[in-house]
């Protein structure tokens, strides 16, 4: 499994003019990127680390399939160059669960949200971010998630977020 892989550096520099490798943390592990500093984080995660849970959907920041947490905040990784994430903490869908599933992931299964499943990693990451900011989200708060779902799972996404909110509240007590 990719997230069990040992931390490793990206490929060696192609040209001697390449700057120093960029260092960043992905799912709690340190990585370096010595390749093109303009490479978007999305393709570094996928092609270099083979963390393929983060998906390509549009490449223009419109669909949210590539959403990751950057220093804890939901961010679209397809437009984010590697030089912009040096020194930062990235959490992908593979790093959302601890020993157990995150309450959002558990709620997603419970409400049977996925259809094709492709956008779901981005949706879950966006929901994790939302619940950090708004532990008891209103309908409008939930609708502020702009990730696209082509299969139309939105009503079950709503239910899953409310369920996760409740279980996270209950866990605090």
């Amino acid at each position, binding site marked *: 499994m990719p997230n069990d892989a040992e931390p490793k550096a990206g490929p060696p520099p192609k040209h001697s003019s390449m700057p120093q490798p960029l260092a960043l943390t992905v799912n709690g592990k340190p990585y370096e990127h010595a390749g093109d500093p303009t490479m978007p984080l999305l393709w570094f995660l996928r092609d270099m680390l083979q963390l393929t849970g983060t998906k390509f959907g549009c490449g223009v920041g419109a669909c949210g399939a590539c959403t990751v947490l950057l220093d804890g905040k939901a961010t679209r990784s397809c437009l984010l160059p590697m030089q912009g994430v040096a020194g930062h903490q990235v959490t992908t869908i593979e790093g959302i669960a601890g020993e157990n599933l995150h309450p959002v992931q558990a709620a997603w299964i419970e409400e049977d949200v996925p259809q*094709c*499943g492709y956008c779901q990693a981005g949706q*879950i990451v966006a929901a994790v971010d939302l619940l950090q900011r708004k532990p008891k989200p209103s309908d409008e708060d939930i609708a502020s998630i702009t990730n696209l779902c082509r299969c139309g799972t939105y009503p079950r996404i709503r239910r899953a977020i409310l369920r996760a909110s409740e279980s996270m509240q209950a866990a605090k007590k």
Partner: protein
Amino acid sequence: MSAPVDRGRRRFLAITLSASGALLIGIRVARAETDPDLPPELLGDDLTELGPFLRIERDNRVVIGARGCEIGQGVITSLPMLIAEELDVDWSQVRVIQLPYGYVETDKGPSNKYGDQGAGGSTSVSDGWKELREAGATARWLLVQAAAREWNLPADQLRTASGQVVAPDGRKLTYGALARSAAAIEAPAAPPPLKKPEDFHIVGKPTRVADARDIVTGRSRFGIDSYLAGALTAVMLRSPYLDGTLDTLDDSEARKVAGVRDVIHIPGPKPEQPFVAGLADGVAVIADNTWAALKGRDALKVTWKQGPWSKESTGALAAKANELLDHNEGGVAVRRDGDMAKARKQARYNVEARYEMPFLAHATMETPGALIDLKQDSALLVASLQSPGGASEMISDLTGIPRRAIDVRMTRAGGGFGRRLENDFVGEAVLVAKAAGKPIKLIWTREDDLQHDFYRPFGVHKLAATLDRKKKVTSWTHWCAATPRPYRENGRQRRIFDGCLEPDDFPAGLVANLDKTFFSVPSGMPRGWWRAPLHTFHAFSVQSFIDEIAVTTKQDAVKLRLEMLGDARTIPYSGHGGPTFDTGRLANVLRLCADRIGWGAKRNDGHGIGIACHFTFGGYSAHAFEVAMEGRELKIHRAVVAADIGRVVNPLGAEAQMMGGTIDAISTALNLAITVKDGEVQQKNFPDYPLLRMAQAPQSVEVTIVDSSEEPRGAGEIGVPSAAPALANAIYAATTVRVRKLPIMPQLLRML
């Protein structure tokens, strides 16, 4: 059919489906390393296979192979449920794996040991209903026989439950303990009897997506997630002009991009010839990784020759369609009943309207792509597919590699909606891999996807009806002028109107005088199958028009539909989903839907309610919406759908399909259109092909599914067709604006 048994090796039963769908059962020898017939997923050391769908572990866990292409319609769950039901195990014992494409050669020609694996026409569940339950029942029969021998008891005294065989005195043996001896028993000549529906404990029970945990943890592998050592990544720059060709290419800058390995011209199919591979003439940029390939593509300097369709535009297509309808030129009779002239002469009311529907892209969340490894005499394909058989055929056609040496691995697919019924992206990957001499992972960007799709046809529908003085519909005219669905058909004979106009669709057979005519509008736009193909295309016109008749003649729109449907009976239906159409079942879902939305109640809140119904692929559905305008925003307060899809295998999955189909239809009807100008598709990415976001979607979709013991039918497409007209009818009720051209929102905002 049995083969010699080699006692020195592991044996297993080969339960296969012949070309005709019959079960073939025999004993074969498993050689894990060399046996090409079994997927490695089903091989292991501490287990016994009972046919190509089943593996039983010694600890009594059961692995079931899912044969279908999972594109979001839920077959990775529903098809294994059918096997598990008859095998008589608990669903919690079951682990599901995706099977690869099961091509085999038999004396009678090419066949598939798993049966039909494609995803199209909502047939996976109905096709599997008998076959897959029989596969489960046969395995159960063998396990019971094994227990009978063990205990020296007659098999008919034994029963099964939760993966165990139980003797009359209460003794039990697990399937895991019996599997090896079961595999040595001769299979029955005919499939054993199946369970009575009242004994079902899996079929009909809400069951969550089998691999949901992989999805929510990011471990699922879609086609685009496949990597292969030594494979290079390719992206294509294709002619933006329909059937355009490469004129000049300067790749000097592209080749300087770090990581770019090669730039290769890949000629497209010739215009007017059958479509066999990549959709457009293009240039492949081949690189170490995706980003390098994309940067290389950006650095290409290319000019194109525009090709034969350089004057094509959506405006000109609409003008041509209307002209054909105005002048009644060159129409093909699709169905003609009764005496139209007489009906017109005797008419008390005449109603007529035209509806225009745009080209649509599939816009699957996962763009097309393929990973292909061509060897001297074998090939491996890993991709998100809907037609693995078509993919295998395409690779063989383009390489000469025999189909039995082509390993096609389907992954979970990020949406299908008909896009992946075409294998152009597979063909393109083959051409690139051949030219590069390396394994290739081909990636399409969203721009590639929206600009090089097989679009739902464009068309204008002219509807006309006459009514007598009792306001009964006496004649029905449905003329459709459209870019025909058939596009560069490769040896397939289709009628020109197939995929645009269905001869027997409602209200055919229910109105005595009927004229359905198709007019062909020439176009260079590639056309394909878009979820519930022609049903979305013409249900909008039919069900909007009935509403217009009701308004014009001051009738209740539900009663009018019920009167047209008449007494409950079956009438012939020649299209997909036939051979009959049951008017009573359609009337039933219409009534259920009307009741749930509160049809007929007086309102004074400015909200409008609209309704529509449709028969698609053997299923019946009705939609109703409650909407209101809030400033320039359309607010959908309620969305209701009632469906009759026969017996439901997985109620949770069926509900998801109806909910998702409804939202897909709303998304499409409100905002989506592909337009063409000067022979070039104008939409490039989601900002100009704006799928619905959560804020615009209804909070919930209220789904009613009829409790039925009829044969099960697929749920993947039936949730779409009646939604768009119900929405347009609701908008009319709220605003008195009749939108006759899709998408709705630009028209509505212009006309308000």
